[in-house]
């Protein structure tokens, strides 16, 4: 990440800073306040999960961190610099299942962001192979998305997000379309990849169990207007195990989040 050193002498790569951010959607009839005065600090290498009921603006916040949408007020910096437009060298984004290009093979999908930048074919292929190996899909590169299971598709998406080695990975409900078992497996896989790469991860989900299981920190948001109502530190040891799910520490964290969400529903 050589170029990043030039952009930001003070903040280390991978830090995210959200300061007093607001977002107002204007419709023909009225203005909807989606986010109000949201502030948040994510230290490099942390795994942070955003939870909250539908309409709390957690995905909107993620889109703004990705540079896909601009806030109405406040500032957001990634690795110390604002993000006025998407920059895959600084931020990788993983969406829900549908976001793989169905006409490209798995490895072509992973190569896509490199191809946009005119990286040579052989270089592209090598880096895509590395990324696919990292997510455990060695040997599946020639398949099209419809020939892959839901979990494999999401591995491809993660590989695509990581192929340019950005310090930050943003994930918008990446496992929402998967069944329970695959979802658990993918959670473990994601933690393995995260531990191996040391990325900063911001992860949006509806699932409280998934939130507590994955996170270092859980941010709980309330809807209309979207605000941060709680910020929990999850001090469960790593690696996380299935047995922890039934432990008291896990249960009390999940209950605390649930009480916030029930209040706002």
């Amino acid at each position, binding site marked *: 990440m050589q170029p990043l050193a030039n952009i930001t002498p003070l903040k280390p790569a991978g830090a995210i800073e959200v300061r007093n951010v607001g977002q107002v959607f204007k419709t023909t009839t009225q203005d909807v306040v989606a986010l109000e005065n949201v502030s948040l600090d994510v230290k490099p290498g942390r795994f942070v999960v955003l939870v909250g009921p539908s309409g709390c603006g957690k995905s909107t916040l993620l889109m703004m961190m*990705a*540079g*896909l949408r601009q806030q109405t007020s406040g500032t957001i910096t990634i690795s110390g610099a604002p993000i006025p*437009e*998407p*920059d*895959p060298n600084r*931020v990788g*984004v993983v*969406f*829900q299942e*549908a*976001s793989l*290009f*169905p*006409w490209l093979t798995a490895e072509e999908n992973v190569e*896509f*962001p490199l*191809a*946009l*930048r005119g990286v040579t074919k052989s270089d592209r292929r090598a880096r895509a192979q590395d990324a696919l190996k990292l997510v455990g899909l060695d040997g599946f590169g020639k398949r*099209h*998305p*419809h020939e892959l299971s839901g979990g494999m598709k999401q591995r491809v998406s993660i590989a*695509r997000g990581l192929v340019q080695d950005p310090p930050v990975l943003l994930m918008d409900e990446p496992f929402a379309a998967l069944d329970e078992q695959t979802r658990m497996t993918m959670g473990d896989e994601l933690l393995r990849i995260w531990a191996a790469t040391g990325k900063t991860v911001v992860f949006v989900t509806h699932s409280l169990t998934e939130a507590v299981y994955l996170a270092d920190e859980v941010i709980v948001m309330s809807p209309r207007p979207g605000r941060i109502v709680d910020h929990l530190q999850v001090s469960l040891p790593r690696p996380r195990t299935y047995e922890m799910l039934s432990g008291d520490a896990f249960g009390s964290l999940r209950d605390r989040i649930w009480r916030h969400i029930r209040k706002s529903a």
Partner: protein
Amino acid sequence: MSAATLRRLIVVALIALWEFLPRAGLIPELFLPSLSSTLAAGWNEAGEYGHALAVTLYEVAISMAFACGGGILLGAIVGSLPRPRILIMPMVSSLYAVPLVILYPVFTVWLGIGSESKIAFASIYGFLPTMLATAAGIQTIDPQLLLAARSMGATLSQRLVRVIIPAAIPTVLSGLRVGGALVIVGVVVSEMLISSAGIGYLISRYRTILDSPHVFAGVLLVLAMAIAFNAAIKWIERKAAIWQTGTRAGQDAAGEIAPTGLQPAT
């Protein structure tokens, strides 16, 4: 008996009946000439039919370029811009209800009874479904795909070339199939109505002298043309759309226009 076997038997029986009913005198040859006499009639006048086929194919080719080129271009523009789409699409569907064949006499007055009036009519005839299909195809591209491309820093032109066009191909092809079939029908029908050359003209000329075998030979030739065109597009579709199962959005779009679009009207 399996359904496929029975189906084949039905087809064979129909062809056999076509041969034997007229031969046995159960159906007058004027109504339905036997298959063999139809083929013989076509074979005996092969030169005449060949010449007519050349004229018709020439008109079809030019009309197809106008109808499909224009339809895809305008459909892409209307489909990708929300405001014109909301404004214009319902108007275009309304226009679809008009029996466009009433325009043909206008074109004969303006352009004469040569190829020009056929090309003008067939182009317009095939234009609407191609445009509707393309607009629907562009419109139903999964927004997640565009968002993903943007998150990877794709510029507007990169998004067009690498996302919008490939994602729209299946729907555009189904639009081409419908539009192309209508172009063939449009050319032949206008030749049947008023003209001095082409297969449609031959069909009508032999009809006025009640020469049924020659009428049917012409009809068979047009059928063969339509079927060959359909098969060609389907072949391209299979080649181009190995991801077909992945583009549910595109499939739905094709389904949406299918009741109106699938059918080569009249």
